[in-house]
């Protein structure tokens, strides 16, 4: 039973839990204890060290900023002003707090306040839905558009929007890059004739892609009233991130083992069978490596694109908080930073697990 558990834990990338499971069964106590020390205690210690450094850095920056403010007040208003400022800062009043890198405890507080905020907003939404339920039914019967909630999205809503956008972009990238990659990979002529296009467009910055997509989508959706910012951002994400998959697919398809291709020739497989039975399965590991890069690139550029395109999501959350300049804005930005990092890491882990699952060389 636990052997199965260990297998599962390893498969989903939580291999560091293995010594704990083994220890709980009383296997090789000494070896497993050192393993735990190596795989669990040491990483935890490094996290602790990181937080301590952060705390120290934040305090130092806070003090510098505070001293600067007091000095400025002294220069402008004399000793009295400086004393007032010092007292104000010490009192923790919002109006005169030094604006700098927030400390870990502030970030933690902001994280809880964001969750609290989410609870309030979702309760509000629910109430709104109940209130408008009957009215919406009537409007639907009359052929009118239902009334929708137009309030401010919560932090969790922003995360969900971002994940949706990145998946839409990722799917777009798959649907463009994999078939084109296969076709290009199969033909030498096509490969050499299209190579320039790939080489030139691959290094183009996400910002430029966004502008290009904006130019095209704006014209195409002139008559539609719907919000185009989602369309623009997911298409831009797809276009920015698809190159890794395209290049890897071409590479995978064009480097299928020659012996295997000879077998396909001798057996006289038709073109469709050849692609689906021989070429695609054998280039799957490389395609998946490309897809993993694509997903992580997609997540990375998404934030920048949302920030520029004013489409809802984590990117615009960060930007709005920065513009907002409220007392806890900085710590909210840091919360968003961690959330972005952790989600990116989880996405990569999910892809890795899927890759292990579909790939033929399982080691």
């Amino acid at each position, binding site marked *: 039973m636990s052997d199965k558990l260990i297998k599962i834990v390893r498969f989903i990338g939580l291999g560091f839990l293995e010594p704990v499971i083994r220890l709980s069964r009383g296997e090789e106590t000494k070896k497993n204890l050192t393993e735990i020390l190596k795989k669990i205690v040491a990483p935890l210690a490094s996290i602790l060290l990181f937080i301590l450094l952060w705390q120290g850095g934040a305090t130092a920056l806070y003090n510098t900023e505070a001293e600067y403010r007091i000095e400025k007040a002294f220069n402008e208003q004399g000793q009295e002003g400086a004393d007032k400022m010092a007292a104000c800062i010490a009192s923790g009043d919002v109006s005169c707090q030094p604006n700098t890198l927030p400390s870990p405890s502030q970030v933690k507080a902001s994280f809880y306040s964001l969750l609290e905020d989410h609870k309030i907003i979702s309760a509000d939404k629910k109430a709104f839905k109940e209130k408008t339920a009957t009215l919406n039914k009537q409007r639907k019967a009359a052929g009118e558009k239902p009334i929708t909630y137009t309030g401010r999205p919560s932090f969790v809503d922003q995360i969900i929007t971002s994940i949706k956008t990145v998946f839409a972009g990722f799917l777009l990238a798959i649907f463009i890059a994999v078939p084109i990659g296969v076709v290009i990979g199969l033909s030498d002529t096509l490969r050499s004739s299209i190579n320039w296009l790939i080489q030139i467009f691959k290094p183009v910055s996400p910002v430029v892609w966004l502008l290009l997509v904006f130019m095209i989508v704006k014209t195409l959706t002139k008559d539609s009233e719907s919000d185009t910012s989602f369309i623009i951002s997911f298409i831009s994400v797809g276009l920015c991130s698809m190159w890794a998959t395209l290049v890897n697919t071409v590479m995978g398809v064009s480097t299928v083992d020659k012996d*295997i291709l000879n*077998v396909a*020739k*001798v*057996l*006289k*497989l038709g073109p469709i069978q050849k692609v689906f039975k021989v070429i695609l*399965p*054998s280039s799957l590991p490389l395609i998946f490596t490309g897809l993993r890069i694509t997903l992580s690139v997609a997540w990375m550029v998404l934030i920048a694109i949302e920030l520029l395109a004013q489409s809802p999501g984590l990117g615009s959350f960060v930007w709005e908080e920065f513009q907002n300049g409220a007392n806890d804005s900085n710590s909210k930005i840091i919360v968003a930073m961690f959330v972005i990092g952790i989600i990116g890491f989880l996405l990569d882990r999910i892809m890795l697990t899927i890759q292990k699952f579909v790939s*033929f060389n399982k080691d």
Partner: protein
Amino acid sequence: MALKTQHKRPDIIIENGIQYTSKVMLDLNDLKKVYPTPNGDYVVLENLNLQIMKEEFVTIIGHSGCGKTTMLSMIAGLNPISGGSISVLSNPIKGPGPDRGVIFQSPSLMPWLTTLENVMLGVRQVFPHAKKKEREDICKYYLSKVGLDGSFHKKASELSQGMQQRVGIARAFAIKPKVLLLDEPFGMLDSLTRGELQDVLIEIWNKEKITAVMITHDVDEAIFLADRVVMMTSGPSAKIGDILDIDFQRPRSRKSIIEHDDYYKYRKHLIDFLEH
């Protein structure tokens, strides 16, 4: 002298005024292969003539790089012919086809398929109208013939090299080719496994009597398996240097062959040729 070194000519049958060379399965006629290089053409094979009879097992021996593999891949249709012709039952070949099964030096299985699926891949092509059950039965029959009864649903990547080559043998026989081409199929195996697989191969071959052409570097393997051993001269412009008939009775056992008086004569003949 038991050694015959002259080329065996096809028996010519005249029937209703039409001339057949009916016993010839595979006919290489003035075969030529040229590779263009920056320093002019490089002639690999030239004036190569060889007739192989129905139900005959021929091994080809020669120095590395003399063009044996080139010749075999030309017969398989994987390598274009520069001059001359290759015909199977008097029909010139056009590209690769399932009438000529190939067992490659490396097993070349699809590692993502099971052993059964690997064999099925070809069988589906050759018997498109058979029911799935029938096709599976064919595959299972050959897989059990090569000693893989319990491994139908194992992934090819989980098998050892020797096991994989067994699947390769089953795959080649299962499409019921007219000619079986073997390109040093046991070259990558250790000598114990090699012996086992020679036995597996010859046992199936005794049943099916498919015309077989096999390249080998191993003199003992060449003698043990073949009706005729074809010796190729060293390149460039390699051709058939000599042909040795092996007159041991089938089925053969390794032990009785080694103890046979003629065995050392054959062996000496081949080694003399190779060291010449």
